[in-house]
């Protein structure tokens, strides 16, 4: 797509701004540097893809952005508030009100139906959409009352997406959302993410090791050894249904 989706700190308030993020696990000899100084800006309505091999630090970055983890050093600002100095309660509130997560393994609550899994979030959110509507958005309007065990993998992941976006989050973070799915199913899931991005203008970050998926992003960040070593702006975004691998 065109220039208006590119980052320009001057005229838009950024959704997320990360500076000098590092993350070190362990101590002494077993120290692992998962992030080695990452800077990142996310503008409203962007859809970025983080691409990289396993161990490149992309999940760590996403977890920090989503308030699931804290960096060893560096700063993250969310809508100009310092996320990195939030305490646990504030981080919980941040996740509850502003962030939607989608994981590789769908993490649905087995004892709740599709609709109830979504209601789980809408009950505690501020201005959620009706759970039925969220499920319609991901194409599951007909399977509201099915339990996770009665749904296919792709369907479960779409419930997870519906659950993530039902609160109308400012930020949708997807960690390998198609990693456990075959390609036709994966494409259905990506279409759901695409549709939500288009209709709700939700700022979205998606992690994958599959470079084909990068084509649907407005911006692609390549990660290696805990750093962003390459940044590509797609001038044209390919629709998800055209992807194949």
């Amino acid at each position, binding site marked *: 797509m065109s220039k208006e989706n590119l980052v320009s700190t001057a005229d838009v308030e950024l959704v997320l701004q990360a500076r000098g993020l590092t993350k070190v696990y362990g101590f002494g000899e077993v120290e692992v540097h998962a992030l080695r100084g990452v800077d990142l800006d996310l503008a409203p309505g962007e859809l970025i893809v983080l691409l990289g091999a396993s161990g490149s630090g992309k*999940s760590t970055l996403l*977890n920090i952005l*989503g308030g*699931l*983890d804290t960096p060893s050093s560096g700063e993250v600002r969310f809508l100009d508030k310092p996320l990195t100095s939030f305490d*646990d*309660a504030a981080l*919980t*509130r*941040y*996740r*509850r*009100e502003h*962030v939607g*997560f989608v*994981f*590789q*393994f769908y*993490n*649905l*609550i*087995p*004892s*709740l*139906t599709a609709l*109830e899994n979504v*209601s*789980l*979030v809408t*009950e*505690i*959110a501020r201005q959620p959409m009706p759970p039925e509507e969220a499920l319609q958005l991901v194409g599951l309007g007909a399977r509201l*009352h099915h*339990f*996770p*065990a009665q749904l296919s993998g792709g369907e479960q992941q779409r419930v997870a997406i519906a*659950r993530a976006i039902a*609160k109308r989050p400012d930020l949708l973070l997807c960690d390998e959302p198609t990693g456990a799915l075959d390609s036709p199913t994966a494409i259905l899931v990506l279409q759901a993410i695409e549709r939500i991005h288009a209709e709700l203008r939700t700022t979205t970050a998606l992690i994958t090791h599959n470079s084909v998926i990068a084509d649907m992003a407005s911006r692609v960040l390549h990660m290696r050894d805990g750093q962003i070593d390459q940044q590509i702006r797609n001038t044209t975004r390919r629709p998800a249904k055209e992807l194949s691998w």
Partner: protein
Amino acid sequence: MVSATLNKKLWRDLWRMRGQVLAIGLIMASGIGVLVMGLSTVEALDETARAYYQRYRFADVFAQVKRAPKRLLSDIAALPGVQTAEARVVESAILDIEGFQEPVVGRLVSLPSTTNSRLNLLTLRSGQMPAAHRDDEVVISEPFARAHSLHVGGKIRAVLNGAWRELRIVGTALSPEYVYAIGPGALMPDDRRFGVLWLPELALQAAFDLEGAFNDVSVSLLRGARARDVIEAMDRILDRYGGIGAYERADQLSNWFLMNEIEQLRTLSRILPTVFLAVAAFLTNIVLARLISLERSEIGLLKAFGYNRRQIAWHYAKFVLAIGALGIALGWIAGYWLGWYETKLYGEFYHFPFLLYRPAPTAFVIAALVGFGAALLGAMRTVQAAASLPPAEAMRPPAPPMFRRLVISRYAVAQRLEQLTRIIIRQVGRWPVRTLTTCVGIAMAVAVLITSFQWLDAIDHMVDVYFRQAQSQDVTMTFAEPRSVEVAKSAARLSGVRTVEPMRVVPAKLRFGSRERRESLQALPMKQHLYRVYDANGTALTLPPDGLMISSMLAEMLGVSRGDRITAEILEGRREVLKIPVAGIFETYIGSPAYIEERALARLLRESQTVSAMHLRVDSLQLSGLLAELKMLPRLSAISLRAANIQMFDETMARTLIIFVSFFIVFSCVLAVGVTYNAARIALSERGREFATLRVLGFTRAEISYLLLGEIALLTAMALPLGCFAGHMLARLIVGGFKTELYRVPFVLEGSSYGWAMIIIILATAVSTVLVRRRLDRLDLIAVLKTRE
């Protein structure tokens, strides 16, 4: 075939699950500890008593007479079967202890003047024996000295045969005859109000006009001699001198009480720990089964590597045996230590000069076998189930349970439930077996608590019926000899006395067919006002105008029923042998009494009415004046206060049974904590992913805790009524099996006991949930979510 790596895995798994391992260990340990404690305490008391009796030459046969010339002793010593015979003077006296307002009952026992004692030897605890020629030196029983802070050199005033005497304490001692130092007519030993004094024979003979005579004889038997033959021969010799019948050691008061108490403890320490161990075994079983079911995918993996079923089973067997060994070791240590502690407590109470605590291995071995058995059974079932699956299937998590919308979810109430509550309810509903086992586990803890509490309730009830409802006298004065009614009635003129009621007690041997039993006949007015005959239902009984009203315990011992005629051999006066019909049988909790209407007894004895004790109702303001007057009265053998009896009963129970029961309370709590902690930990490991997801979705720690703890709360709520019901049934069962000659325990369970049991279990589960909640707070969100389901 032993894989070092597998063993390493074993130790690491044990360490990783240390919380749960410890919880299961504690469950086992409580069952085992209770058993070891109970059995070893009883064993120790039994052994101590035996050794004490043997070392201090406790006599085998005893007899009391009015007055027998000294030369009879050689006749008795010459009887076939007799090893040693010793004659003494034994009398009662009222004592006055400085600073103690109530009169004290003293038992005066003579020490031979010329030789050392040969039977019923004293253990001198301080000071020395009195000099044979002194008539003012006395050795007193150690517990009595302690109760009054009396020391060597101190003084006691005593009414000896109607005259005040001052006695100087030269020593303190213990005697095998007074292990259970119980005063006349009392139910419990009371060291403040009853004491034993040993004086030189000459002094006592002089004081009680028994020069050249004795009124008490003890005999030890040759090995193989029949006590019964010796008793009959002694009775023939002593009859003419006012003998009231020789009796064997089993009927000696202190020993009878002691043996009854040990028997009572034996029953208790068999029943309660058995219940406990069974419960602990059951819980170990279910908890381990659940723990192992978490290992399902690992079992599949091991099979995929090529381990065979036997190897896998052995691997997990070792895991379980390690846990079992921990539980057993903890149980042994706790049981041994508590057994020693308990033995010491009882040792003080029973006045032994030494204690033998050498628990036999039996208790330990039984406990260990049950413990290992329960653990292995629980685990192996699950291991077998997992090992029999094809590896690929075992490695996958078990098929997700089919959650369905429950019928109730259609109702409006259910519609309003928030999702978290819905999760809890579905979780509980979807795993019925799991729900049931946890529920049953908690319920069992409630049940054992209730059965423990039932003892306290039962005793309260006994005290209430026996001392508070049935009796309303304040003071009972017992005469040394039966007195005429007129003399007795003068008691009414003592200061502060409002009502008097006479009682006549006649020592007798009761016989029916081949069965015989020494039991005094208690003669009371037809309708009693102060000292009432109550049956177990709490109804006051009117004595029939003729015949005996006997307790069901006595009826059982003699094998009689209503209408049968009992042969009563009266052991005093003209020593009549009477045939008395049983006019009624009633149920009572304490002893095995036989009552008869006072005029009926006088008619049978062909004498005018006499009394042996008077029950008095006293104006409380004038009680101290009355006690001072009573101390001065000659020819009283005992004075007892009902209030003191109640206090003593309560104190004694507090020192014995309540301590015993409180251990059970502690162990019940351990059970409850163990079960709930494990249930919560397993839930946490099975559903960690779910909890992490919710945290990621923005649920707070409190909300997640609600999910887990709410489930436990719900299970506990379901378990409580179940536990109350089980406890009720269990208590009934136990009470039915508990019966000694001295006590029958009524089945009484107060509402408050259910209440306390529930409160304690709620607190115990709260403790374990707090422990688990700390883990929930540390849940690693990322790690959990990254792993595959």
